[in-house]
């Protein structure tokens, strides 16, 4: 670089026009090199990600990020965050229509290209969750349901027993069930035996932003259930949390608060998209083993004496 600069300075003094041409050519060559490299890299990487589409039921998604629609400061902010995140599926909640006013449909604020995943949030029994899922199916004409049966108001931890009971009923009724549950391998197996299309272990309490609290459990789940579709749901706080979940082998991540409650949901949506892709690629690439001690990267021989 020093040499180039010197040459350029000499040229500039001797012949300003030649110096200008020299500078332009260098810029063209460098720019072409960067572009070619960029195209080649991004094509290979996007091919790799595309070949590994996330499959849920008979649906296929290029994005492994599923995001919520709650807590945004405005509909416009939500829409921009959704677009920036590249997510192709979003969750919505089922609630009573207010009787005192004519309300517009919240769904009108979602891009029509998005797959809607209704949830059973707020249900504390298998019975209520099943009723909610049936209502959602009737209204949206989708078999997809994010099954959520809460066991406690403070932690919003799932009631695994009620969740399993509801999952059995819904799977028999032809629903494509995605249950939120504690990160427990045995529970995961039971949910899969019941016929769930994917399993959604929590990373941390809903809306806590604590990130993956028990990476070992997720890793065990991945290793023991290699065929299962595992989507980490709840507890992600920032991009690195999502990347960690994916690096551990999750097939996808579902999140809401991390994006909605950030200062710029649009930027965080984009950050999450990149984190999910980075984490997925790192998982596919296979990380190096952890070592307690150093391992030199430069050859040990041939050092000057």
């Amino acid at each position, binding site marked *: 670089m020093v040499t180039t600069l010197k040459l350029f300075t000499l040229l500039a003094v001797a012949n300003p026009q030649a110096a200008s041409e020299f500078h332009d050519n260098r810029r063209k060559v460098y720019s072409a090199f960067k572009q070619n490299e960029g195209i080649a890299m991004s094509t290979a990487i996007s091919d790799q990600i595309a070949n590994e589409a996330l499959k849920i039921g008979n649906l296929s998604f290029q994005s492994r990020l599923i995001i919520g629609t709650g807590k945004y400061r405005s509909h416009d902010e939500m829409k921009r965050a959704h677009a920036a995140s590249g997510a192709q599926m979003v969750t919505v909640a089922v*609630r*009573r229509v207010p009787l005192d006013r*004519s309300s517009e449909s919240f769904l009108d604020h979602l891009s029509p290209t998005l797959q809607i995943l209704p*949830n059973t949030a707020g249900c504390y029994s298998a019975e209520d969750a099943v009723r*909610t899922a*049936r*209502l959602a199916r009737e209204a949206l004409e989708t078999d997809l349901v994010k099954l959520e049966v809460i066991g406690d108001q403070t932690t919003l931890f799932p009631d695994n027993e009620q969740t399993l009971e509801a999952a059995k009923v819904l799977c028999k009724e032809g629903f494509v069930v995605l249950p939120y549950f504690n990160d427990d391998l045995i529970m995961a197996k039971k949910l899969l035996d019941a016929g769930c299309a994917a399993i959604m272990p929590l990373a941390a309490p*809903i809306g806590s932003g604590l990130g993956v609290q028990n990476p070992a459990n997720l890793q065990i789940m991945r290793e023991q259930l290699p065929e299962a579709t595992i989507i980490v749901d709840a507890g992600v706080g920032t991009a690195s949390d999502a990347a960690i979940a994916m690096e551990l082998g999750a097939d996808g991540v579902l*999140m809401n608060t991390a994006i909605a409650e950030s200062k710029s949901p649009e930027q965080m949506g984009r950050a999450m998209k990149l984190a999910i892709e980075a984490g997925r690629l790192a998982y596919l690439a296979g990380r190096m083993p952890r070592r307690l001690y150093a391992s030199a990267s430069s050859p040990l021989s041939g050092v000057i004496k």
Partner: protein
Amino acid sequence: MQVYVNGESTELTEGLSLADLITQLDFPSQRIAVEHNRTVVRRSQWDSTVLADGDHIEIVHFVGGG
């Protein structure tokens, strides 16, 4: 007759159908679902579902959620 709509006690005229109730409440009827005594009623059955005293109706739509 008295019917419970979304938990609220509502006075309605005898012989009202579910379809009549929805019209009367002036909801946008798209992308909502209705339960009659804890059973989902398909849209095609709204007309033929006649309400009775003491019935419980749940009418739901979608809101933002995670």
